């Protein structure tokens, strides 16, 4: 018994045993389809996010307008994802400059930290109860996209909305394998550390724009 590990475990195992209590019933809220979407939008908007209802075909054009109104100069995107391809195809010469995150961060850090104005990612799902986006970054759509640029644009399909995190974990089978990183995002970065006064964009994005793709 000479390692700290063994000593700690030995002490814990020597402790008097108590029965593990049963987990009492508890059910997170459930919504019907229209209430689900309304709740998702309302919660996100309450957290200072902008939600736009779009279609699978028109979202790149809608995004172009939104970004133009904000005077956004460039946007980081994931060239190898279907959404990234659709974006690039419809961008064609107009709109903010597209910056492809197609190499390791070591070669892209400067762009992400100092140059990028915005970034577009997809979301694997959305949670109505808390107005949260479920992000599972991949090698094609890396983690820092939703974090470093001042504006984060997220695409989420209405059909992927769930009522609660508990439901998401269950229906998406999270327990059988988690990715390197999974993130729930419920608004832009914020702080209330100075006199409980809300301020946005302290380290992460100042703005969160959610494009909610309708079912049709």
């Amino acid at each position, binding site marked *: 018994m000479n390692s700290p590990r063994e000593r700690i*475990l030995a002490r814990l195992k020597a402790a008097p045993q108590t029965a593990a209590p049963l*987990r009492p019933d508890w059910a*997170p809220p459930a919504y019907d389809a229209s209430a689900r979407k309304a709740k998702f939008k309302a919660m996100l908007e309450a957290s200072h996010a902008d939600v736009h209802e779009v279609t699978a075909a028109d979202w790149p054009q809608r995004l172009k307008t939104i970004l133009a109104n904000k005077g956004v100069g460039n946007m980081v995107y994931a060239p190898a994802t279907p959404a990234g391809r659709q974006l690039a195809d419809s961008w064609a010469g107009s709109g903010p400059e597209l910056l492809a995150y197609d190499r390791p961060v070591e070669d892209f850090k400067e762009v992400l930290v100092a140059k990028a104005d915005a970034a577009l990612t997809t979301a694997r799902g959305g949670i109505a109860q808390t107005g949260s986006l479920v992000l599972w970054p991949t090698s094609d759509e890396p983690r820092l996209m939703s974090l470093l640029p001042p504006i984060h644009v997220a695409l989420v399909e209405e059909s992927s909305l769930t009522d609660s995190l508990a439901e998401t974990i269950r229906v998406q089978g999270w327990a059988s394998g988690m990715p390197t990183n999974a993130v729930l995002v419920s608004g832009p970065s914020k702080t209330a*550390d*100075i006199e409980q006064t809300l301020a946005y964009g302290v380290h992460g994005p100042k703005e969160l724009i959610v494009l909610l793709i309708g079912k049709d």
Partner: protein
Amino acid sequence: MAAEASKMEFGAKAHVALNDPKLRANFRRAMDGLMTKRAAQFADEAEWNALRARGAAARANALAKLPELLEQLEANCLRNGIHVHWAETTAEANAIVLGILEAAGARTVIKGKSMVTEEMHLNAHLEKHGITPVESDLGEYIIQLAGEAPSHIVMPCIHKNKTEIAELFHDKIEGQPYTENVDELTAAARAALRGAFAGADAGISGVNFAVAETGTLVLIENEGNGRLSTTLPPLHIAVTGIEKVLEKLDDVPPLLSLLPRSATGQPITTYVNMISSPRKEGEKDGPKAVHLVLLDNGRSRVHGDTELRDTLRCIRCAACMNHCPVYTRVGGHTYTFTYPGPIGKLLTPQIEGLDCAGDQPHASTLCRACADVCPVQIPIPDLLVRLRTESVRPTQGQAVKGAGSSATTSETLGWKGWTLLYASPLVYRIGTKMLGWFGNLMPSSAPMLKQWTSVRTKPKFAPKSLHELAREKGYCDE
């Protein structure tokens, strides 16, 4: 940290804090706000009761199976490529973190908010060895600039108002003009810390929940600094107390619903960050190595007592301190140690010893506000009473560290005398007679009376006892 008995200074510090109108105003404003926001979150009594029962059960479950779950967590982390380290003491944990950093040649470290690293005094340790830690949570950054310790476990700089912060930034951040505008102050911190994030050789974070089933570290935050600290630098070291483990992913949602709602009245934090492995082949960002340091520091001893074990259910939401009539008036620094408020006065003496922090369980009115709001149903007042008892009369076998240390010879003798007095009718009669005759001659500065009479009038002994008066009236006392 080996702390000495001289740390028993709550009373003296409380006195100073109570006479500091600025400090009291800062806390009052903040605590009133947090209490109102929390109350709005739990307006539905039935939902609150069902949720906290589930949350408490999830935590109690983890503690009942703690050694097995830690082994499972370790196995799953290792399988996922996360290195796992065990530390019995804060000194060991500091040495482990330093060793990892030195092996990687790291010189600067960016830190997400972590109370465990405060418990370890990790920053001081790293600085001593030439490594620069930069706190990135805005509140932590502010107190690091000021050279202070956190005064609250969720809102570390709650003791400061914006005038103080404006002066601090103007003073410490190069080129920063004086401004009390919160957006401008926040932007100044963002600008100052961007470079620190980009240049950091490593990131250090705490952990809110460690899920044994999948080997996942769950971290919650609002600012994004936690995600940055755990994503941008090439190396991530997560430090956690051994009690933070959960059995299953299914235990996360109820606790995640309880924690931010209890802490700041938010339905959820802006970010819930779940880390299960370092950067995999082909992935473009994320740290190339992730280390998990499991710190005991007295927790396994707390776990050994089935009653006090409940202390370890804590999810560090700070609701108990926000609602504590003592904490809200004296502030966090009065508690000297890392964890203030009700959870602090319960946890600290168990970790540091009753001989060292034995005054803390007494810093409570036992009003039960903490127990009412605790999302995992820790019976804090009952456990405080247990610690008070332990400090003078240790339990056989399961003694708390430093148990019995408050027992004094004069008090022990006093109680022995008391027992004697009440056990024998003759001695009792003689005793009360003597007090009736001579008690009023005792000056209020007499050794046994001095402390009592410093804030109270000296009791006046009646010439005749109740027994005698009753007997004179013809009542029979046999």
